């Protein structure tokens, strides 16, 4: 099995550790992983801003880089959802379709494709899980509080395999943090208020770390935590799953 590692642009530039943890975790699990060097961005920032018609360059690049792999795996539910829902290429639609069906968010890849039942990690801390909307509601990584349906959670299933971890409960289990892509600057006031409320829920329940499947939500909450001089840290879920092993 050859896996193409898709590292979203802002993770590449600002959170390389999340990328490294993803790569190391997959390697530990015996997967052959390749990072295609010429990848940039999935195009979501433009598409969510209403400029999907400008994403052809990104789409072409993405298909060029990733069409040949058995799977494409990424530490970002949001970017994966964008690729799944919106990546098209009029002259290479068959390849685009393959890319759309083979792309996986990392926790879903671990539970659904690799079907891991044990992880080597150890993380003896109190952790709050932020369920990012695109992963949860878009990719169905976990049950949604609005639906009358059985409960499940792929990220929690994996976190529970980590030795010593103490997962804290939240008052609102799956409310949006307010990042929302360009929403975080175009609607600054509401975005920040949502982020503050989300962070407070974690703090009030004693989290030492806030984790999640999307670094973008975590980046937003980290900005708020730092402004408060909080000691609480954010960490991508792969960094915890890969920790101390």
């Amino acid at each position, binding site marked *: 099995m050859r896996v193409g590692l898709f590292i979203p642009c802002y993770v590449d530039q600002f959170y390389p550790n999340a990328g490294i943890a993803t790569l190391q975790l997959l390697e530990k699990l015996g997967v052959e992983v390749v990072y295609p060097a010429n990848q940039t961005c999935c195009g979501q920032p433009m598409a969510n801003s209403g400029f999907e018609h400008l994403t052809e360059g990104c789409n072409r690049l993405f298909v060029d880089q990733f069409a040949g792999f058995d799977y494409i795996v990424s530490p970002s539910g949001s970017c994966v959802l964008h690729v799944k829902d919106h990546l098209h290429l009029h002259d290479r639609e068959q390849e685009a379709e393959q890319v759309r069906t083979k792309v996986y968010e990392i926790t879903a890849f671990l539970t659904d494709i690799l079907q891991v039942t044990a992880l080597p990690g150890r993380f003896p801390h109190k952790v709050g899980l932020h369920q990012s909307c695109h992963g949860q509601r878009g990719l169905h990584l976990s049950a949604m509080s609005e639906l009358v349906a059985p409960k499940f959670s792929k990220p929690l299933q994996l976190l529970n395999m980590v030795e010593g971890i103490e997962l804290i409960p939240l008052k609102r289990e799956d409310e949006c943090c307010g990042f929302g892509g360009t929403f975080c600057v175009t609607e*600054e*006031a*509401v975005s920040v208020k949502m982020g503050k409320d989300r962070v407070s829920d974690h703090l009030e329940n004693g989290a030492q770390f806030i984790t999640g499947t999307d670094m973008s939500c975590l980046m937003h909450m980290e900005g708020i935590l730092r402004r408060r001089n909080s000691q609480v840290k954010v960490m991508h879920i792969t960094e915890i799953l890969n920790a101390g092993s």
Partner: protein
Amino acid sequence: MKNHAQLSQEFNANEPRVNWHDETLWWVRQKRDKAANTLPEWEQLREAASSIKYHTLSNLNDYLQQFEANAEQNGVTVHWAADAKEHNEIVHRILAAEGVNRIVKSKSMLTEECHLNPYLAEKGIDVIDTDLGERIVQLADEPPSHIVLPCIHKKKEEIGELFHEHLGTAKGEADPQVLTAAARVHLREKFLTRRAAITGVNFAIAETGEFVVCTNEGNADMGAHLADVHIACMGIEKLIPQRRHLSIYLRLLARSATGQPVTTYSSHFRRPRAGQQMHIVLVDNGRSTQLGREEFRNSLKCIRCGACMNTCPVYRRSGGHSYHTAIAGPIGAILAPNLDMKQYADLPFASTLCGSCSNVCPVKIDIHDQLYKWRQVLMKDGQGGAAKGLSMKAMNFTLSSPGVYRTAGKAGRWFLRNVPFVVNNPLNPWYKQRDMPEAPKQSFGEWYQQNRKK
């Protein structure tokens, strides 16, 4: 004209108030969750409700004609209005013919959409809204901020202040029971003395020509039963084919709206009583345009329960007035651009696309997907402005070329590390209340080149 971002910034100036607003509506959302979870068949009900509406919208012309024929046979006068203006004129004509200049009106978001109250006021007709929440915002000279809970943005102390000023209650009185009793006395007098009543319509049934009005206060019934003239105003999408379909919607409506099993009053109006006139105004006002927009057609399934507003994390923290349209919240944000793309171009962007709205919607409208689609339509139509278009083109240029992307990334990180004031300043909306992420020396790509590429 202020946009959603500016109006919500103003709303957020008072953080304790935002907390209160958010918690009040979250409480309603939780009541909705509890009510939904009492029905194991909830998701099937949603699917059935969605399918019936889909079928109805696909055959809307036939069902409307069937409804018209049956209603006329029942002795109801049916009117057709192409837009808000025609709707208002029809209502005025009916009232003028009877020489009525004082009326009562129960809840109808359609009349809000058509701005009927100010229109009638100009014609010298006094309108009293009889839904308690609507009466409160009417006294405050404000539009409703929520379609089901029109005055949810007001605290009981503020309502006490209004009642003191307009209804003569004691100064400082804020006990909801006392205030409600005062409103009751005030409204009783109106019900008993006004000869014409306007109501909205929650559901109209094609096979019987009847319509159903749902309220918790019984105010629609009080108005309609006591008046000589009953005018019911409905959007053409309120139709369902058969009476038996109603059970599905009545089970979903109140549970989604407030968490109640059913509204306190679900009143069927079929024919006028002896000596009474009953009119129905069927209003299009952009609905057939929306029906013709394939990607947005589903929005016409809406039964106006307000669940999408209660669950929306943006609505809860920005308030209904920030949407500057009659129907606020996620559903309003997909309905309003249909009426005016320019005026409401900001609304599809007033969302994080979290998807919670689509999940609570009892008729399964793909609300957040439609928000995304509206963004595409609006920007292609040039509603984003030249600057936004240019910045997106620059972004496209950078991201379409790996070399440019890597150079820009490296330069950006260097600036953040060495001259942070370039971004850490008040011109950067991110920095205003958040710190910037720390810029690492090495990107993941650079690390990979060094550590994995042989």
